[in-house]
């Protein structure tokens, strides 16, 4: 079966400028996303993890064309999404917009403070006209119920809600268009731990009930493990390892993935943790290291790693890794 979303060699460079007296000059590029490829199947949750600044959020925005990709191809349901957003007809664009939605990281910034919840959730009906006006009310109430809010909340404004409730409103807004694919960009990272589980449960619930696929972006490995079927690990604009969730957590290969997994806190005070400490800082994405981008921080790095870029190879079924020495770690 063809995947719902297929991303091929996606690249996004942000130019950096030097400000002269009269004109600005491009002095370099931030390699935010540097040639990543992956796919998301129908009604599948794929996790995308990595440190801050590694390009996770940019990837999400590129897929929705909220940022314009520098290079690459995005196929949604077999159709070339970038081409449609750039040159497609209004109908094609609207159809694509309807199929993909995003839930943002900060629920305090992602709801228009001047609109009531009813206006926010019914907005998509107004744009896409897929729900007749006399059914709006009913539909909004249904959506509120679906995300665990009450009908009377519809008349309120965003500032009257807590973070968790706001995130539910964001999710309700995203599913109001009946999308097939949702990008959830750290939807729980700004929430209290007690609320997180509820939101994660809601996301999985919607996957089962509505068959929605997700790209779940997070730096929190435990939530990724809980909800995704497959996980991709990103480092400095590249995907370094991708595998089905259990495979990745139990048999990780890439030294970076291993370091990340070792840093996940285990709620057992007696168990000793063997955290793999990575030396140094994440290098600048303006001048990424040569060869394997992880080599300056990798304790297994050899001269080969410094010079040659490793290829992304399938080491096991659906388990891909980008490391010269994968055979030794497997």
């Amino acid at each position, binding site marked *: 079966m063809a995947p719902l979303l297929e991303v091929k060699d996606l690249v996004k460079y942000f130019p950096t400028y030097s400000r002269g007296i009269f004109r600005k000059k491009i002095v370099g590029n931030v390699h935010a996303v540097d040639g990543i490829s992956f796919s998301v199947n129908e009604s599948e949750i794929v996790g995308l993890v990595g440190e801050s600044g590694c390009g996770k959020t940019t990837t999400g*925005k590129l897929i*929705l064309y*909220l940022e314009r990709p520098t290079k690459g191809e995005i196929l949604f349901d077999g159709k070339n999404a970038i081409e449609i957003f750039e040159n497609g007809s209004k109908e094609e*664009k*609207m159809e694509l*917009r*309807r199929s*993909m*939605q*995003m839930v*943002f*990281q*900060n629920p305090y*910034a*992602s*709801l*228009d*403070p*001047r609109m*009531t919840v009813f206006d926010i959730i019914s*907005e*998509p009906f107004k*744009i*896409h006209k897929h729900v007749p006006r006399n059914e709006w009310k009913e539909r909004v109430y249904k959506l509120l119920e679906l995300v665990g809010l009450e009908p009377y909340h519809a008349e309120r*404004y965003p*500032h009257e809600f807590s973070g968790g409730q706001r995130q539910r409103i*964001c999710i309700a*807004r995203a599913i109001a*268009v009946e999308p097939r694919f949702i990008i959830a960009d750290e939807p729980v990272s700004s929430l209290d731990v007690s609320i997180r589980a509820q939101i994660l449960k809601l996301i999985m619930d919607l996957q089962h009930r509505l068959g929605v696929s997700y790209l779940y972006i997070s730096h929190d490995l435990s939530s990724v493990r809980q909800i995704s079927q497959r996980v991709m690990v990103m480092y400095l604009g590249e995907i370094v390892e991708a595998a089905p969730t259990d495979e990745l957590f139990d048999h990780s290969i890439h030294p970076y993935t291993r370091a990340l997994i070792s840093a996940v806190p285990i709620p057992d005070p007696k168990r000793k943790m063997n955290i793999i400490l990575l030396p140094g800082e994440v290098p600048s994405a303006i001048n990424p290291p040569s060869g394997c981008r992880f080599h300056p921080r990798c304790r297994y790095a050899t001269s080969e790693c410094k010079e040659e870029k490793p290829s992304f190879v399938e080491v096991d079924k659906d388990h891909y890794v980008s490391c010269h020495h994968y055979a030794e770690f497997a």
Partner: protein
Amino acid sequence: MGLAKYVVRRIIYMIPLVIGISIVSFFVMYAAGDPIQIATMGNPSITEAQRQFLRNYYGLNDPIPVQYLRWLDHFIHGDFGMSLYGGKPVNQIIGSLFWETSKLQLFSIILAFIIAIPAGVYSAVKQRSVTDYSVTSVSIFGISMPVFWFGIVLILIFSYHLGLLPSAGAHGAPSLWPVFGIRDPFLDELAHLILPATVLIFAGLAWHVRLLRAGMLEVLRQDYIMAARASGISERKILYKYALKNAITPLITLLGLEIGLMIGGAPVTEFVFSWPGLGRAYVTAVSKLDFPLIMGITMIITIMVLIANLITDLAYAWIDPKVRLE
């Protein structure tokens, strides 16, 4: 109803404020000097006895608190007394000038506001572009230009050299507007408005544009704008409906201030264009110590500012759901 109650309460609160301001201005005014002395200064043949007679006539010899209470009594009955010059009732003087000043000011303020919206939005969207810099430069140019200089330059170009627009007055210039020979009173008034309004718009535009630009830059970074884009709303609608609604609050404050202060706000422009307005009358009245007229205009400005404040607060509550009128 909550709103009506709120408005009534606010208006009741205004009463002590108005009285307080009137007391302060009244006493400050009396400390400034003797109007009879100033009025008769140029006439050496007037004797001290005649001056005394005039002072008695206008009641200026009574103790100041007594004079104030007398003024207050008249004020409450809607009577500002007689001007010391020309003997016309102050109500009548203000009445004829009030319309001219408000016409000029409202026209300029509203036009500046309307021009600022696309200019501010556009320069925020195209931040650091040539357009952004041009919009900023033009508005800073307007704000830094002295009104008396810019006004006179405009008169020189458009009235003196080109003969296109009238240079003085609010209507019916002595030699009727020569260009099209139009005698329609409305067009005549409009023609008189153009030059002084241009000066005022230029002087006020920068505030509007800069405030809106800053607000838009802030709002456009928010995720809810991104969410609106992701749901397929057209860029134009995102800017002018969603973002603008969130960015416009400071502009409403500014608009409220400007409308409150508009009555006394532009004496210089009124002088340059010989506009028959209150600002000019106010300055003249102060220089001649025309007590009843000074008090009359001061009170009109006070009441205008208070009412504009109230309207601004109501507009806030209307536009921003977070503001509750308590």
